[in-house]
């Protein structure tokens, strides 16, 4: 292995792409477009608050204040339903899943309780709901919690059991922050895989590989230069993606040495797969098709775009056999959760895979022809 040979080969490949500006532009633009599109789609989804439909039959000052208080809890956006409306019909007509009904006599009962200290006075708040809605039970639970809080408040007794919330995450993350590491993993995979397959089939068809086979360059030198070349492209592409993400979506991610480490491992693995493909699929077009056949399932099944927890169990098991899954996991562990241990575990898996594939790639690469 001669580093000057690797360096010279790297230079030739970099100059070739640098001088082909349009290709380079589209290579860099594609993942950025993905981030912009998905980021925009999911931008609103981060501050989820439920819409709460309320029908106030009491129409009193107290009932109005209570409804306002519900709204101020921050968990609901209150929408008022006309007291004259038939709620069941209203639910059907407006595709609403739940309407909270404040009964007539609410204020009277409230006064009896607070002013006259009549502890028997109570009032029924009715939930009229559509059980076929998937979110309605969550909504009712939250409502129950809020109502329990109000009851407690009114009893004026300090609570004995208090709850303190502590998320396992150091901070809440936005969807776009979940999405970006997945797109980086996906982009580096496609760049490495297609870059390698396209470059090598093109050079083979042009006969350049044949000429190189009559020089002392070794397969290891050639593939290493491929890996470095794709790594540089991947770093440029990732930098561009991050700049756009920070500028447009104001994301907050942990950027540390794990990021280049996972890019490099991802790159090793998929350049290796690319070399193996190039060896066995002779035609440039079928090689590109084979690369597609590998990268597409990888993209959609390994959790690049959405958490694999959303998929059925057998697909989750399948996902865990895909190398890209470990890049996704590792990058998310590092960039979102700042979890070094999880990142280390993921890097061990993808690292082992990359080493095996890289060696197979060297073995598969054949300079001589039949």
């Amino acid at each position, binding site marked *: 292995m001669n580093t000057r040979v690797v360096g010279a080969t790297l230079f030739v490949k970099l100059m070739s792409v640098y001088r082909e500006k349009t290709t380079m532009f589209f290579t860099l633009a594609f993942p950025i477009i993905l981030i912009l599109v998905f980021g925009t789609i999911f931008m609103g989804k981060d501050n989820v608050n439920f819409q709460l439909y309320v029908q106030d039959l009491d129409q009193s000052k107290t009932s109005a204040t209570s409804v306002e208080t519900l709204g101020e809890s921050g968990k609901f956006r209150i929408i008022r339903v006309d007291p004259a409306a038939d709620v069941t019909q209203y639910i059907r007509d407006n595709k609403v899943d739940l309407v909270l009904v404040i009964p007539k006599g609410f204020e009277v009962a409230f006064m009896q309780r607070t002013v006259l200290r009549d502890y028997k006075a109570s009032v029924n708040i009715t939930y009229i709901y559509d059980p076929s809605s998937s979110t309605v039970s969550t909504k009712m639970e939250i409502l129950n919690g809020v109502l329990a809080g109000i009851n407690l408040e009114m009893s004026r007794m300090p609570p004995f059991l208090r709850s303190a919330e502590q998320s396992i995450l150091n901070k809440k993350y936005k969807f776009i922050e979940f999405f970006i590491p997945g797109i980086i993993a996906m982009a580096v995979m496609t760049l490495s895989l297609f870059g390698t397959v396209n470059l090598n089939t093109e050079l083979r068809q042009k006969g350049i590989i044949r000429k190189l086979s009559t*020089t002392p360059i070794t397969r290891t030198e050639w593939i290493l230069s491929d890996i470095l070349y794709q790594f540089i492209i991947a770093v440029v592409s990732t930098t561009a993606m991050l700049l756009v993400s920070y500028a447009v979506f104001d994301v907050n991610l942990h950027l540390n040495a794990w990021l280049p480490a996972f890019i490099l491992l991802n790159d090793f693995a998929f350049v290796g797969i690319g070399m193996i493909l190039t060896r066995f699929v002779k035609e440039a077009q079928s090689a590109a098709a084979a690369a597609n056949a590998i990268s597409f399932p990888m993209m959609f099944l390994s959790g690049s775009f959405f958490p694999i927890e959303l998929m059925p169990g057998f697909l989750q098991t399948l996902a865990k056999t895909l190398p890209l899954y470990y890049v996704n996991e590792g990058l998310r562990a590092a960039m979102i959760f700042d979890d070094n241990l999880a990142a280390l575990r993921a890097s061990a898996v993808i690292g082992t895979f990359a080493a095996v594939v890289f060696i197979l790639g060297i073995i598969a690469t054949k300079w001589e022809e039949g």
Partner: protein
Amino acid sequence: MTRANDYAIEVENLTKRYGGVLAVDDISFTVKIGEVFALLGPNGAGKTTAVEIIDTIRTPTSGKVSILGMDVSKKKYDIVRRIGVLPQGFSSFDRITVRETLQYYARLYRGRNTDIDRLIELVNLKDKSKEQYRNLSGGLRQRLGIALALVHDPEVVFLDEPTTGLDPRARHEVWEVLQGLKEEGKTVLLTTHYMEEAELLADTVAIISRGKIIAMGSPGELIETNANYQILTLRSADEKVFEIVRKLGFEPVLYNSDKIKIRVEHTEGVQQILSAIKEGGASYLGLDVRKPNLEEVFLKLTGEALHDGHIGEEGSA
């Protein structure tokens, strides 16, 4: 020195089979150090297959090939440092300049001090050295390819159809470069289907047809032993000329609609034909008598033309 070291290339019983096709059929030859050796044959004869096995690009079905005393199947890595190859249909990195390409290939041979400028001058690419490969014409590309084959000052040079696809001017420019190599005393193995190229450049020519070497020797020897006659060409549209020549017992061939070619065993035959035409009251516009070339040798040996169409059109340039 052992006997083996007098030879740059030794090929023994080389055979290459592709499925049912015998691309190279049991060929043997040797190339001495300093010799320019040409494999001459039509398309599909097996030249590229043979030369690519010899210069380590392909592997043989059977047979033995040594370069500078080293077996190509065992010492590829040592051999490639001492040979330079211009593959058939040579191509290079589109967006890399002439100079950069030369520097790159020089680097592949690890740290020798290559005089790039001298190479650029040798193949006459001085004013194109900053041009990217994709902007070069066919002739310039071939010249760059030749320079790349020489970048590490190799002992043996392989050139597979160095002038195919070039226009006549570009071809002559490449020939000039190759004659320079010959004068430098490089060992060259050349393949071509242009008899003129073989005749001009080669010390030894091996004629190859359907995978077999059917004749081998210096161009002069090959012509002497296989085509010991003269060729008389008459330019005339007069149909009578054709008839008169035929009645004399010759076998005239009409081509290009107004040329008649006659193979004549002895010089007296020429006299005989010309007098008979005069006596018969026919006329011709021009005549040419020449010795046969390798084209005719090939026709004689195989019954086929080296090129499509009639023989002799590329004739004496």
